[in-house]
């Protein structure tokens, strides 16, 4: 518990540092490409196009999603959910290797090491927000995803996504510094989670076995993906399903406590593990 407060304290005290470092991180990443930041739009666009073809046109034969009266075309349903995945997935992968790839350039021991995963995560978060804004604008020209009060929940779900990704990265970045195989493990898990989260396919609770429904509900990423949809497609407020909200934050809290305990216990020895 003490370490959890310590990590939280470091995050707050080093906020300016974190923001500046994340800006540089972003710059380093896009410096060598001529199109620079444009790739943050091109890449997702290509992916969405492929998924829309295969899942929307191919498997679903162009059927829309939702119950009668509240139907949403598959494309909008897909985009409003997958958008946050374009943040979550690279954030977790890069967050996991954040410490062992960067500890060498961190020159001093009194640098708050728990800031490393968070600035890496933030550097992935900015382009995602821009992408989100772009999509929200495009949505205004279609029949679905019109701006409404529900959009106000987006900051809340962004916060939820960052909290979850950061807590998880605290654990994985610590473990992968000690045992590099963890990085491989995280990679496969993320690939699996992409399908265990309702991003590409629409789960029908009535047709699925009970335990699969449970896994889908228990997966904290579902909460965020569905939350983004609730906000962008004006479906629901986050307090309307408060049990799920409570479960999600409980889950994040447990991850965060475990993560900070691990991180604080082992961080003095990170350099020795290189």
């Amino acid at each position, binding site marked *: 518990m003490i370490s959890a407060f310590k990590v939280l304290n470091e995050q707050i005290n080093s906020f300016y*540092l974190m923001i*500046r470092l994340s800006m540089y991180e972003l710059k380093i990443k896009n410096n060598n490409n001529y199109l620079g930041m444009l790739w943050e739009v091109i890449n997702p666009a290509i992916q969405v196009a492929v998924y829309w073809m295969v899942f929307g046109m191919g498997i679903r034969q162009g059927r829309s999603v939702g119950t009668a009266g509240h139907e949403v075309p598959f494309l909008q349903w897909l985009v409003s959910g997958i958008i946050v995945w374009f943040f979550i997935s690279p954030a977790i992968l890069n967050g996991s290797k954040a410490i062992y790839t960067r500890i060498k350039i961190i020159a*001093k021991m009194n640098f708050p090491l728990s800031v490393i995963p968070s600035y890496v995560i933030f550097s992935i978060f900015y382009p995602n927000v821009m992408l989100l804004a772009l999509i929200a604008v495009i949505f205004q020209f279609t029949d679905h995803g019109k701006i409404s009060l529900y959009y106000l929940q987006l900051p809340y779900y962004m916060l939820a996504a960052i909290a979850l990704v950061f807590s998880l990265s605290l654990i994985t970045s610590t473990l992968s510094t000690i*045992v590099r195989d963890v990085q491989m493990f995280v990679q496969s898990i993320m690939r699996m989670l992409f399908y265990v989260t309702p991003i590409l396919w629409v789960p029908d609770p009535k047709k699925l076995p009970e335990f699969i429904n449970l896994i889908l509900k228990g997966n904290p990423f579902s909460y965020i993906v569905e939350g983004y949809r609730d906000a962008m497609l004006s479906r629901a407020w986050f307090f309307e399903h408060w049990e799920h909200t409570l479960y999600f934050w409980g889950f994040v809290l447990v991850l965060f406590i475990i993560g900070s305990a691990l991180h604080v216990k082992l961080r003095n020895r990170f350099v020795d593990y290189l």
Partner: protein
Amino acid sequence: MSNQTVIVRDVTKKYKMYKKPAEKLLDIILPKGYGEDFYAIQNISFEANQGDVIGIVGVNGSGKSTLSNLISGIIPPTSGTIELNGEVSLIAIASGLNNELTGRENIELKCLMLGFSKQDIKRLEPEIIEFAEIGKFIDQPVKKYSSGMKSRLGFAISVTVNPDILVIDEALSVGDQTFADKCLDKMNEFKEQGKTIFFISHSMGQVKKFCEKILWLEYGEVRAYGPMKEILPKYQEFLKEYKAMSKEEKKRFKQQVQLKQSGQNKPGDKLQTSSAK
């Protein structure tokens, strides 16, 4: 008197050597640890005062860089304590500049990591640029720099942040004579201000010119520590001896060293160098 800036007490740095990755895992899991020990630094104790310029000398692998990393707090000691009164700044050849960013951006990044505030950085930036003397290149990515430029920028950052304790790890060997002289001037200025400087160099000329005290490391232990005039001749004598050793003798010497660094020999035993003559 509280003019002691660095107090090193019984510091040991132990590394583990593994034959395969699985042993590393065993070492983490088993409570007693697993793997062969390697003592890079063994039971080192010394003190440094304000205004001391200490040259750290020793042959390759004697733990000079490990010691400099320990003093500057990059790696934690396995046992023992290092007490520091003041801010430390380490200058090494690979001074942690990012190749993709420009010199100017690197200055901000490095200062941020050293814990400076926004205002401080704004104040320091022109000073650093002036000291580094790399002209238009300051707005070019560091990957386009020559190695001399890199070390100049690194050096400029490290001295301008005004540390109380300075550790210089062979950083002057890359720059040209004029820049080296400029750095020596700057360090003489620091000396007068009462800062403590650790100077690691293989160039006996620079050490002789600049240092007042010598810390002679031999395979992880302090062989001698004292005024430059006393210790340096002894070290140079040793180097001559070492060079003159026959292959057989060198081999024997190395074996002794290995035994010592694996922690099987009691620390404090002197290596038999002169008897091998």
